[in-house]
């Protein structure tokens, strides 16, 4: 009888050979990866000879570029024709303002959430409502009831990139996780109750099931939905976390409202990089830059004795372009382009959506800049869109050196734009309301009559409605 322990190490996987060199291990892993790619492309067909070699190489190339974390699609200028009016799909179904509208990565479904607490699933191909979840009545009392749905306004939605989980959060401090894979509808999976104040923003890490949540309690929490558990909390913001965005890597970008910082969180290192906003933007800069159209006083000389200066007091929205570049929008109407190397923005576009006039009894007409209420970018490309309540969504293009950006087009979108999402339409998807070609871009915006997290801005009339708008931008032929 051999009482000795076996030579095999119980903590090693079976396929690994103990005497494998690193090169051999790399080869084995690469073969495994290729197998995975082949099977995913084949989608059921096991005859390897039928799979076009080009498909694999194209997919590999795309994967490499995406994993590098840098911008690689230079599409804005050359490809899209923003002169022609794009066809839009309007979905109406919410009683109150729509706070977020997200489309799935495969371009099939659209999810919208409204201030009345309901989430609606739409079929993007037809534009028909598929499913609605309603607000649950809040249970008052001492017993801790496991939440089954939302009981208050829903402020934000996020969809995982594989389209399996939908996360929602709002005023009731619960992050709801819904299973949306079965085409019947949306079913509640779990509610995370860790946050101590309203949840203002959610973001999934691309191609994973990790969820970032930012809340009014100034913390950012990380959850892993593959195991339905809470992972960790990140501290740092001094004011409400207004917006969050993340890409493939274990990093996220958030902006805190009035603390005027944008923070880049490195999860693995447990550190954050602090970028300081809150800059001054003068009317003079705007006039000299000339990016603003439709101003009455174009005849005014740039050098004015009384310069109107607008200070960015709060940073409202943030959006990641690639792993080292991101954008933010503030309440002075300025869109700032940030790079990882500088603590101040490398380019600021002041008063992107113009000035807004309010009547006051004491002071007469007060002009103030329109805030940026939504910003969204086509990932890893140089195209992004911004929205406010001036009735337009503006599309911008980053220049070649990624040091500035300029306006390339606008689309009409009445009401307050509460969320913007840009995604490239995958091959083979068609919509009944508009034609799509290879390489078209879908813009999904959640619009409403009120601002997302409060009622500071109310636009009733001039065509504003509560719903979502989808536009398709076709590439130039």
């Amino acid at each position, binding site marked *: 009888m051999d009482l000795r322990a076996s030579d095999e190490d119980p*903590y090693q996987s079976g396929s690994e050979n103990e005497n494998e060199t690193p090169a051999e291990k790399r080869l084995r892993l690469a073969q*495994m990866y290729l197998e*995975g790619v082949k099977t995913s492309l084949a989608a059921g067909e096991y005859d390897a000879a039928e799979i076009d070699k080009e498909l694999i190489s194209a997919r590999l190339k795309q994967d490499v570029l995406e994993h590098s974390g840098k911008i690689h699609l230079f599409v804005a200028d050359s490809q899209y024709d923003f002169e022609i009016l794009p066809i839009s799909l309007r979905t109406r179904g919410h009683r109150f303002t729509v706070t977020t509208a997200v489309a799935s990565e495969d371009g099939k479904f659209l999810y919208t959430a409204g201030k009345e607490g309901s989430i609606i699933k739409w079929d993007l191909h037809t534009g028909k409502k598929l499913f609605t979840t309603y607000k649950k009545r809040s249970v008052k009392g001492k017993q801790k009831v496991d939440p089954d749905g939302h009981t208050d306004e829903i402020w934000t939605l996020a969809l995982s990139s594989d389209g399996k989980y939908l996360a929602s959060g709002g005023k009731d401090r619960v992050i709801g996780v819904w299973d949306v894979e079965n085409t019947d509808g949306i079913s509640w999976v779990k509610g995370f109750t860790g946050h101590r104040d309203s949840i203002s923003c959610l973001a999934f890490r691309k191609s994973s099931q990790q969820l970032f949540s930012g809340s009014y309690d100034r913390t950012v929490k990380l959850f892993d939905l593959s195991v339905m558990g809470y*992972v960790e909390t990140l501290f*740092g913001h*001094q004011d409400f976390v207004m917006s969050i965005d993340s890409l493939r890597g274990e990093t996220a970008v958030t902006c805190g409202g009035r603390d005027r910082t944008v923070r880049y969180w490195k999860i693995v290192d*447990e*550190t954050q990089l602090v970028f300081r906003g809150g800059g001054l933007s003068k009317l003079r800069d705007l006039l000299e830059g000339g990016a603003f159209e439709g101003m009455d006083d174009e005849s005014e000389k740039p050098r004015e004795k009384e310069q109107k200066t607008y200070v960015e007091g709060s940073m409202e929205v943030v959006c990641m372009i690639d792993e080292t570049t991101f954008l933010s929008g503030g309440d002075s109407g300025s869109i700032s382009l940030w790079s990882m190397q500088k*603590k101040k923005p490398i380019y600021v576009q002041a008063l992107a959506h113009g000035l807004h006039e309010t009547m006051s009894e004491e002071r007469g007409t007060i002009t103030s800049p329109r805030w940026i209420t939504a910003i969204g970018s086509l990932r890893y490309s140089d195209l992004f869109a911004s929205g406010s309540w001036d009735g337009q969504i503006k599309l911008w293009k980053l220049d070649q050196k990624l040091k500035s950006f300029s306006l390339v087009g606008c689309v009409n979108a009445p009401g307050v734009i509460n969320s913007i999402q840009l995604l490239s339409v995958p091959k083979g998807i068609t919509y009944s309301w508009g034609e799509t070609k290879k390489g078209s871009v879908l813009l999904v915006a959640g619009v409403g009559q009120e601002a997302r997290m409060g009622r500071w801005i109310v636009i009733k009339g001039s065509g504003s409605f509560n719903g979502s708008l989808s536009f398709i931008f076709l590439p130039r032929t």
Partner: protein
Amino acid sequence: EESDVDVDAPRVAQWVDEEDLEQLEMPSEDASRRKTGGDYPSLYLPIGLASLPLGALRRAQRALAMAQVQDSPNDSEEEEESEPESEPEDVSAKGKERKPDAHKPEWSNKPRTDIAKRTNKNAPVEVTSKKPITRRRQIVDVPKVVLRDPRFLPFIGKLQPQLYRQSYGFLADMHRTELSTLKESLKRAKKMLAYSPRDQREEREREVGKLEQAVKRTESNVNRDKRERIEEDALRKVKQEEKEKRKTGKGAWHMKDSERRKVLVKARYDALAAEGGKRAVRKAIEKKQKKIGQKEKKNRPFEESK
């Protein structure tokens, strides 16, 4: 080969006390032992467990336990394509090696030492993300008031003696009046001291002492004022003369230090003469020479007396 490998040899590195290690490293006389299989396992053979001190044994046991714990499956690497290999219980596996320390708090207030300092002042600051924010928060940046010495601030400007004399000329008069009042009060205090009862004597002595010091201070102030006035007047006179000469065509000229000293000394003695007469001047000169002589005498090396 089976015979070469010693199956009872420890598979994990054992802790060996330093003295024992030296013993091992000494060229052992038994070359025969070297022949049998690897040197590595045979190194530990000569040391019987009985010869190891108890502390070493305890440390070895602890090291073994640590090694076993760290070998447990915590190296779940993250691969984007393959399924997450983390076990369902280990929710907190983040794709890096984590010590299974149940007592580690989720956040700690100790400053992080491994965060790199930023490369230049324009780069963003890197701080820890695990430290909770206090209730006391600075929302508005209050500018820090830096205290600076007003004498060295640029907007003060250079000293203008004329202006100074105009604005602060009254100080000389004040010093003089102060001196006279102090002298009077000193006189009175001395008188009181002479006629004071025993219990108040010490206090009055102290007062007299203080007053004497104050008198000395004020006297030196008065003297300084007088001296400075004399010197300033003398230098001003020379300057004015130079200005006149320059108007009539003389070139630029700068007073040397030695010349300046000479002028000042002359001015001092002139003032003394104006005040006291020739006798006073003579006496002052004699006194000075005597003093200098005494000092020189002191500094001379020891001389043999005649």
